[in-house]
């Protein structure tokens, strides 16, 4: 099917990104994969999780830095030893398949990168949309003010999972679908959902304060709400997996389905998200102190 291009045609009809399908078509059109008698040995080999077979990731490492490769291999060996020790000492099978093989590691690193990107993107989009909605709510035009208020109520009160589906369907209507687009949509939707709460809080605080307060002094007065919405934004990011963003939850679920052991991957996931949320809390504390100094220094 790859060779005939049927899959590319179907992908084009339904607006699905086809870069992977094109590379597969090229692969299946060339030797040895276009040879009916020889292809089974080389072309249908399923990707494994262990480090027994040579891989693309390792080829890169060899070309770039042999020392790094040795380091990665020694980490794999150390993790395997640790797994054996845990089995002997706790009598339970605990394994970390994402840290004992190159394909697992490749997926794991990709998942972490995407999760971090989602978290950082969600924080910035929350602040950006919050500030934009606040500015628009302060508009002197009644029509604009009311429209933005209705939009904010809609965004605040809709479940994030439905907003993500809505964003994903809307974008597929206009631009089709791809990984980058899914990530962008997830970042924007999480930002809008939390930003609407932030914008409303800032607007209500500005009504209670002086008439012409700067955006920074308003932000200073709603620091508790800013902290809450940013933490919520980070905690919401795993829901992006529902619309096909391959973040850490998705990649670890995939790795788990190959390895069969869940405890290790889920333990890593728990630690990752707890550290991420605590990191955001610390960053907000720092930003809050700086903002207080800055707004306090203003005349």
């Amino acid at each position: 099917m790859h060779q005939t291009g049927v899959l590319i045609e179907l992908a084009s009809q339904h607006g699905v990104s086809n870069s992977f399908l094109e590379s597969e078509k090229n692969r299946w059109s060339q030797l040895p994969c276009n040879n009916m008698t020889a292809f089974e040995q080389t072309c249908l080999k399923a990707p494994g999780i262990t480090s027994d077979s040579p891989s693309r990731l390792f080829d890169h490492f060899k070309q770039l830095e042999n020392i790094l490769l040795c380091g990665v291999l020694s980490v794999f060996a150390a993790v395997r030893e640790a797994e054996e020790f845990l089995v002997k000492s706790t009598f339970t099978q605990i394994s970390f398949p994402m840290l004992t093989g190159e394909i697992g590691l490749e997926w794991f690193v990709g998942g972490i990168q995407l999760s971090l990107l989602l978290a950082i993107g969600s924080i910035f989009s929350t602040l950006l949309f919050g500030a934009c909605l606040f500015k628009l709510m302060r508009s002197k035009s009644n029509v604009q003010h009311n429209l933005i208020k209705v939009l904010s109520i809609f965004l605040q009160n809709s479940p994030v999972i439905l907003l993500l589906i809505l964003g994903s369907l809307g974008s597929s209507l206009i631009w089709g679908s791809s990984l980058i687009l899914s990530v962008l949509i997830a970042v924007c939707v999480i930002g809008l959902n939390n930003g609407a709460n932030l914008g409303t809080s800032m607007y209500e605080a500005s009504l209670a304060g002086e008439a012409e307060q700067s955006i920074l002094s308003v932000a200073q007065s709603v620091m508790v709400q800013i902290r809450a919405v940013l933490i919520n934004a980070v905690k919401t990011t795993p829901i992006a997996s529902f619309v096909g963003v391959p973040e850490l939850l998705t990649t670890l679920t995939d790795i788990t389905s190959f390895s069969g052991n869940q405890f290790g991957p889920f333990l890593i996931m728990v630690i990752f998200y707890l550290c991420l949320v605590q990191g955001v809390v610390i960053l907000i504390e720092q930003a809050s102190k700086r903002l207080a100094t800055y707004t306090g220094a203003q005349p």
Partner: protein
Amino acid sequence: MTFNLTDFMINFLYCFVTNIKIGLLSLAAGFVLGVPFAFALRHQFRVNSLIKMTLALFRSFPVYILMFIVFNKINNDEFLPGYTDYAIRLIAVVVAISVYTTAAVCDATSDCLSHIANKNTAQPYLIVPNVFRIFTLAMMSSSIGAALDVSEAVSYTVRVYESFPDRADRFLLVLGVTIFFAIVQHSLKILVLLLSQLIQRSIQKTS
């Protein structure tokens, strides 16, 4: 394929009852841990630091991730023998949301106990709108159950829209359902506000 709006709405509301059930069960589970935690925190128990740590953990843990962890745990280890696959999915959603409700119920109960200790007569009743607010949020959060294919309103909507060949129709259906959820949650928020104002007024009268 023909789409009957009346049939969809009846089935949708039937599935929405599952969201309400999940909200109520999560709230009940929140009471089971949250109220004893609040009572313990008012006294000098040795376990208090452990309770505070547990609550901090509960507050910072993503509910969606926890739902998958709980589901994988109880689904594979024959943790709950005799339970159907659907019941296991439902339990996973309830347990995950209970983490939020436990922390929230503990906060609301702590406030209530402080008012009682200060001999305020009407303020302790503010726990009623607080608990109602927690229930509202738990009910709305139950939409994450769609990821585990629990038969709730969002999951049903996903099943229906996937049968639509036209993407514009899919978009319109999801938009309609999202507006429904937004109206329900906003109405419940107004109800919570009205309840709080009613109690505040009675506080002013008594004082």
